[in-house]
């Protein structure tokens, strides 16, 4: 029983990180019709920027994380200006966009390898014993991750439901032309969407780095579960992405009860294939 609960906690953490990152992927897809294969590497860059600020430059953790989030967001907007906006102007289709995003992913990952090498690194954070809550072992960092994940998810929900920007984002996702015709500056909305998506991806990367370690492949390996979460929740639907992330993370962690741990990544793949066969519009999508 206790063992099971431990897996649930692990699942919540992994699911939260996947869900948080998936929100950005799905928001970007909703507005730009871009299935961004580089999204995982945005997460990697975010994690390494946090390493740069905290370990290399010796900034305090909170300051380093804030700086990493801001730089990641700026990087995403810069990539938009260099790559996605010119393609948007030419009304590039799904496939050219997708292939370009794989190219961007390669460039980013190799940039990380060039600058930091292939070795596994940590934020130098001493892993404490962890406290016992009703027999569950949970570290302070894990607790911080869980609380932050839920706080951020609530913030995204608030933003989308109640703010002018959030409504404009939903409107642009429904119909970009109609959004422009209504007086919404869609380019401005796109810029803000990138800021949010990259900030969330960077946060996900930092959380993953704190919970385990960082390495250049971290984002690329997480891309499959992130996409699985997005598809599970119905592509373009941020709430679906959160729920999908939780389901994927939980299934991966709980799967070790029945199958060997090194098959974990296969679980999200299996779920994704199943959902594509049975309900391609996702659990919460409409046919």
């Amino acid at each position, binding site marked *: 029983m206790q063992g099971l609960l431990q897996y649930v906690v692990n699942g919540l953490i992994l699911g939260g990180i996947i869900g948080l990152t998936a929100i950005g992927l799905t928001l970007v897809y909703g507005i730009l019709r871009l299935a961004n294969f580089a999204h995982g590497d945005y997460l990697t860059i975010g994690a390494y920027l946090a390493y740069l600020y905290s370990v290399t430059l010796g900034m305090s953790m909170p300051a380093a994380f804030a700086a990493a989030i801001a730089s990641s967001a700026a990087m995403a907007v810069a990539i938009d200006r260099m790559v996605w906006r010119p393609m948007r102007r030419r009304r590039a289709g799904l496939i050219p966009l997708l292939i370009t995003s794989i190219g961007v992913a390669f460039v980013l990952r190799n940039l990380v390898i060039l600058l930091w090498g292939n070795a596994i690194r940590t934020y130098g954070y001493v892993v404490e014993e962890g406290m016992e809550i009703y027999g569950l072992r949970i570290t302070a960092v894990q607790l911080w991750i869980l609380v932050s994940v839920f706080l951020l998810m609530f913030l995204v929900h608030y933003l989308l439901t109640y703010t002018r920007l959030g*409504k404009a984002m939903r409107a642009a996702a429904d119909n970009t032309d109609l959004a422009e015709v209504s007086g919404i500056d869609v380019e401005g909305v796109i810029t803000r969407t990138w800021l949010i998506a990259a900030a969330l991806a960077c946060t996900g990367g930092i959380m993953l780095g704190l919970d385990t370690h960082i390495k250049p492949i971290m984002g690329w390996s997480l891309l499959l579960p992130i996409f699985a979460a997005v598809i599970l929740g119905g592509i373009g639907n941020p709430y679906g992405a959160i729920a999908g992330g939780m389901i994927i993370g939980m299934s991966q962690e709980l799967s070790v009860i029945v199958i060997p741990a090194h098959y974990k990544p296969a679980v999200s793949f299996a779920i994704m294939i199943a959902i594509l066969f049975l309900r391609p519009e996702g659990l919460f999508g409409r046919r």
Partner: protein
Amino acid sequence: MRILTVEDLVSGYRDVDILKGLSLHIEEGEIVAIIGPNGAGKSTLMKTVFGLIRPRSGRIVFRDRDIAGLKPDRIVRLGMGYVPQRDNVFPSLTVLENLEMGAFIIEDRRELERSLQRVYELLPVLERRSRERARNLSGGEQQMLAIGRAMMLEPALLLLDEPSAGLAPALVDSVFDRIREISSGGTAVAIVEQNARKALAMADRGYVLDMGRTRFEGRGEELLDNEEVKRLYLGG
């Protein structure tokens, strides 16, 4: 006073010209009907005027200002509204949110509230259904919502692309009644219609477009009585 002048407009998609030197104009407060066969370029004209398509050449002057090449969100701010032919509501947004998007450029909460009340008065069905998602509305209600969204900013000129398409006859009349009411409030209206006779009967003036050019122009009754127009475009 002219509110809109279109001169020698050439516009189209990729390498095909659809509008081949089209000219027309709209006076302040007027209702102008634009009719013509399928594929004549009526929707292309509206999309070009509203900045969704960049014209290749020609002039589009709105209230003394050349707006050719301006983006739609700039054009809205100058006082023009547009109801596209298809996909003219945000399906996943509620009726209220759709209307709010129509007034996106208004940041003042009270001003927004006033616009909302004005549109609810014009189209009461929207107030009753305000919490409903647009995709759950009937065809007629969606059309009313599309018009309501475009009316949130009290535009000086409203472009309507087939507002009665696909509606039952009784609903068509009620849409036309609303358009008359909008016009009597001082808004100039340019309306593209398949219900050509009804549109011409309501309009001050009309244009017949064909093959990307203006074939006929005149007062509404004039066009309705014109033998050639009747034979070619009004089905005898």
